């Protein structure tokens, strides 16, 4: 069994309640931080831990915290990004639904470190029922003196609120999230200034992912140096992985970073292999935005070394032969999957979710969806593959926020690794009806 820090008590009945959570050692990090440490001590421990943002970008959390501007008399905010919308990602929902107090505890400890009197958890609107669970946990925390005035009898006071969104992938981008939290359209802001200088209501703000904030608790409890011993190299600690697609055991798994990809896919402890004993065709390892890799490149790097579940190993080979750990949204495709049709679902997604501010993204995502639609419908032209390539290249790097890149990379990687499949669709449209697109509900129910 791999090391478990976040999901250690996932199977304990009642772990969603404050009572059971505390019996299992919950809120120890709040006690330790508020009573025995200074805010800077907490920041230093997080720095030492090597924790990197678990939302997708992988930026060192301690460094992000140390950038926070602290002028006298100006409010500072911690905002939790619970907008989890990256296709293939559902680990934050799992954690919030089952162990909501792990996030609330992390919000308090992190807010103490940052000197934030108020924090907001911005959760995607579709997760309304999860917002209810969090609100219940927050109410319990207030009643126990863990939130509100003079927490645990210390000088530190803090209020934490849940805010629901209303359906917009773009609000996972931190400045779009802040706009939305201010009651506006989720249009990303031009940076600089970064939120650490001017974030929510123009005040210095740190925006962190759910898993990142929850991970602060074990870091404070065990100490940053101990935490850094877990994992591999600069990929310290554990990571929640959302596994979906053609695997026997879809779900959320906590892995120690450095686990071989092959073990993750095939071992009974994790995904349990491919359904029906089928062959692996491809994997999107870190949410829909990261490059898709064919089986041989996800299991081994181009150099022939085993590919590991870590920031470095998954990106080994750059975009030519590698990908990214991203959000940990691990989607597995078996030999029957149409890469072209799957890409069409991604292109449709990005077109739908583009906020429309930047022309390359607003127009380009629409064009890519349209071209892919005609290809999957059997009306593709031989020039379409190069046209898709050209469009994605012109979107990448030319937008205010990373949504443009996120829309471009799946297209580029699918063409790079599966060009022949696009050609088959275009040159032999008569065969499309015979191309197996997906598993039917009944086939799976029987599997």
């Amino acid at each position, binding site marked *: 069994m791999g090391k478990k820090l976040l999901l250690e008590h996932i199977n304990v009945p009642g772990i969603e309640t404050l009572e059971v959570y505390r019996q299992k050692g919950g809120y120890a990090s709040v006690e330790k931080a508020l009573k025995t440490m200074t805010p800077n001590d907490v920041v230093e421990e997080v720095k030492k831990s090597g924790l990197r943002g678990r939302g997708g970008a992988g930026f060192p959390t301690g460094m992000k915290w140390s950038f926070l501007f602290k002028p006298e008399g100006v*409010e500072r905010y911690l905002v939790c990004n619970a907008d*989890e*919308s990256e*296709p*293939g*990602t*559902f680990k934050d*929902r799992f954690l919030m639904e089952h162990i909501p107090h792990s996030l609330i505890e992390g919000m308090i400890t992190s807010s103490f470190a940052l000197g934030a009197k*108020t924090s907001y958890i911005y959760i995607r*609107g*579709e*997760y*309304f*029922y999860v917002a*209810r*669970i969090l609100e219940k946990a927050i109410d319990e925390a207030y009643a126990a003196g863990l939130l509100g005035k003079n927490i645990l009898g210390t000088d530190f006071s803090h209020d934490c*609120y849940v*805010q*629901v*969104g*209303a*359906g*917009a*992938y773009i609000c996972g981008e931190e400045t779009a999230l802040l706009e*939305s939290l*201010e*009651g*506006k*359209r*989720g249009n990303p802001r031009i940076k600089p200034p970064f939120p650490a200088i001017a974030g929510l*209501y123009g005040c210095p703000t740190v925006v962190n992912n759910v898993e990142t904030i929850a991970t602060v608790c074990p870091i404070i409890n065990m100490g940053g140096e101990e935490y850094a011993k877990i994992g591999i190299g600069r990929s310290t600690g554990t990571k929640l992985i*959302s596994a*979906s*697609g053609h695997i026997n055991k*879809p*779900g*959320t798994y906590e892995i120690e970073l450095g686990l071989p990809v092959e073990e993750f896919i095939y071992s009974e402890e994790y995904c349990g292999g491919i359904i029906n004993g089928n062959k692996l065709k491809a994997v*999107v390892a870190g949410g*829909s935005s990261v490059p898709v890799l064919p089986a041989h490149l996800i299991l081994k790097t181009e150099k022939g070394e085993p590919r590991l579940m870590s920031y470095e190993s998954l990106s080994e080979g750059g975009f030519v032969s590698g990908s990214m750990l991203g959000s940990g*949204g691990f*989607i597995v*495709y078996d030999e029957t999957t149409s890469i072209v*049709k*799957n890409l069409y*679902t*991604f292109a*449709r*997604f990005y077109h*739908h*979710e583009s*906020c429309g501010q930047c022309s390359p993204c607003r127009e380009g995502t629409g064009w890519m969806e349209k071209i892919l639609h005609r290809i999957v419908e059997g009306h593709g032209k031989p020039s379409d593959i190069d046209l898709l390539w050209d469009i994605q290249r012109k979107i990448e790097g030319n937008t205010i926020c990373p949504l443009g890149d996120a829309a471009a990379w799946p297209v580029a990687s699918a063409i790079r690794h599966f060009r022949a499949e696009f050609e088959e669709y275009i040159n032999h449209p008569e065969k499309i009806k015979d191309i197996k*697109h*997906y*598993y*039917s*509900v*009944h*086939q*799976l*129910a029987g599997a």
Partner: protein
Amino acid sequence: MSKEIKFNEETLALVHKMMARYPEGKHKSALLPILHIAQAEFDGWLSPATMDYVASILKIQSIEVYEVASFYSMYNLKPVGKCLLEVCRTSSCWVRGAEDVVKHLEKRLGIKEGETTADGMFTIKTVECLGSCGSAPLLQCGASYHENLTFEKVDALIETYRAEGKRKSYTDLDYKNTL
């Protein structure tokens, strides 16, 4: 006659409580949650009159409400059925049969995606990733996620909802319904 667009005392108290979560002068932050409440209270969609009413509560311009309402997928700017069946269709759901679920619903309800049944009970909508990829395929109706769908589960769900005859809203207090 359409009913008067006005929150009752209890709802109004909740709305003011929400507005108090934000610093002085920043109460516009409560716009998204209040629009959810308004949609649930006033027949499942945001009519111009409803949006104007929300603007008056927050003391902001109507256009500030319109531009937000039109940006987010979960606000309905046209009337929908009492049960809005939102079927996820992005990659992980698609490879596990989301298109089958849509086709089955269309056949079963006698309407196409985007349409509402004549009795005003059901609307079928396809949506992008709902963050339940490990339990695909799924559909959302109100606050409930219905996961690992089979045709039998879809049929049972429709029967249950039809028998209840109630409007389903995101703000419903029920927790996850694993029917």
